[in-house]
């Protein structure tokens, strides 16, 4: 631990770790916005042709689909970040 915290190398690694984290966050948030604001609201007319149980796919995304995607996103992020922590050696002991 002490070795990893020597200066210089840590600053570089820290910046790389943070940049990788921000990249994962941005990708996740694009999906987050796409399923809710996109498929659920703004792009709903585009999905109107796809029927789901008496209504269309946009309705399903607005009432259920987006929630399921949100769940997947959070668990993906937790898994990916815990892996990233180990790759950069910044995990907690």
């Amino acid at each position, binding site marked *: 631990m002490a070795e990893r915290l020597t200066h210089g190398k840590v600053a570089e690694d820290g910046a790389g770790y943070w940049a990788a984290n921000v990249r994962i966050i941005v990708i996740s948030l694009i999906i987050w916005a796409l399923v809710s604001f996109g498929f659920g*609201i703004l792009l709903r007319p585009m999905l109107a042709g796809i029927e789901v149980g008496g209504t269309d796919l946009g309705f399903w995304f607005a009432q259920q689909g987006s929630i399921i995607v949100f769940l997947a996103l959070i668990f993906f992020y937790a898994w990916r*970040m815990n892996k990233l922590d180990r790759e950069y050696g910044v995990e907690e002991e």
Partner: protein
Amino acid sequence: MDQFTLNLLFVGASFALYIGIAVWARAGTTSEFYAAGRGVHPVTNGMATAADWMSAASFISMAGLIAFTGYDNSTYLMGWTGGYVLLALLLAPYLRKFGKFTVSEFIGDRFYSPTARLVAVICLIVASTTYVIGQMTGVGVAFGRFLEISNTAGLLIGACVVFAYAVFGGMKGVTYTQVAQYVVLIMAYTIPAVFISLQLTGTPIPALGLFSETSVTGGEGSVYLLTKLDQIVTDLGFASYTEAHKDNLNMVLFTLSLMIGTAGLPHVIMRFFTVPKVSDARWSAGWALVFIALLYLTAPAVGAMARLNITNLMWPNGTDGDAVAVQTIETAPEYDWMQTWQKTGLLDWEDKNGDGLIQYYNDGSDAMAEKAAANGWEGNELTNFNRDILVLANPEIANLPGWVIGLVAAGGLAAALSTAAGLLLAISSAVSHDLLKGQLTPNMSEKAELMSARIAMAIAIAVATFLGLNPPGFAAQTVALAFGLAAASIFPALMMGIFSKRVNNIGAVAGMLSGLIFTLLYIFLHKGWFFVAGTNSFPDTVDGSLFGIQSTAIGAVGAVINFAVAYVVSMRTADTPQEIKDLVESVRIPAGAGGAVDH
């Protein structure tokens, strides 16, 4: 055994359970009172967060709002779950790494300014108090129904119970109590929904039942439940259930407001201070959403199925046949619920044209005017149906067994109580820990701190009860205003504190104040000053509002203003000192989180 006794039994038994747990795990030291010694497992923490989170708004109010509006109110579903993504990705792990007890401590330290901390405390108190008003509305409905008294009397009794309950223990008592409350409330929500889904569609999973074919179709073969619902509501002149009727701008801003607000509410964020490690904080947010999703995936089914059941009860011979007779409502057992709810003052009907039948239809619709004139109808005769009663009345509407009704009463109270308790805790810690000990009287003893925390709770609940007597909207709508306030003030400051090293003390204070003041003014201009009815300058409708944005959706705009002001002001004032840049660096990296730091 009659229904009243059965309700008392279920409510009494569930309360005995919570109080038993609270006494067993009673908080001793200040550190235990706030954060339970950081020894809570992510799954346990997730379940407690879910109970804390799913309040009267989610449990009692939301499905009713969806039932009577349909697709447009999907915003509540997306907004109140999507916020957890923001929380998990943008805040929770970093705030846990920071390792203090409260949100305002982070803001005070990161922006190296007691003023910033003070402003954050004020923002928290404003948002949380508005939130408690919404809870008290729900508490009034739940107590009114189960004691079979008026809504007002129910509210006053409920306030006393909430207070007694919140004073009992701190977070530790509350954490394990809330696990028990989660179990009670999710069973209470799901079991009747499963019964109703089976009755209507033959599918035991309500979330799937919503998109299935219904077996109760009035003889023309099977059709999809949503198709059937669309048809009967439009027959009666109401807006169709599945189509959009609200403009995209308001839908997007409202959803965004709820999402950002979720990630800015102190009582939810505080939960992530209580897990042992940074990686646990990431998982915790996911587990919380798992337990929340169990209810949120069921809620739209509850709404749609209840709307179908109510309409069928009011039009037992189909929408082209005769409406239900007054005599039937007064004598037939399947209409008993209407009589019980009438006592609360939240449901009423009136035979306006004296034909002995109660016609339920949309008398504001032009298409219906002709039909009404032809049939001699003189207006909608189901004169009052408060949205907030739908979930609690749902098992009675579907004619389910008495024990299910008792269970729902217990669940509704659990939902309202758990959140009210969590909020009161957040308010009291803001006042005693941040305001008094942090700023005004730093030498205060632990005992005096606990005492002032309890006094703050008493004041908060008194204010909320007073305003809850004339609430600014249905429970979920009032709660949505609280989210707007949290979205506009707290979330941007937290996020900039982590993701920017450049935003400084002056910028953060200016940002929070402009976000909060803008949002609060906009809400007061549309909802009345301090929510007093009649003092509003603009009607709270899309067309009448100041910027064409409803007051419930304005928080998202407030948040943008907060970000912009903070950034511009920071760029024009001195850079942040080196130790703050180091603090931000350390918060970003999980290693070395360590235990709780008392101070």
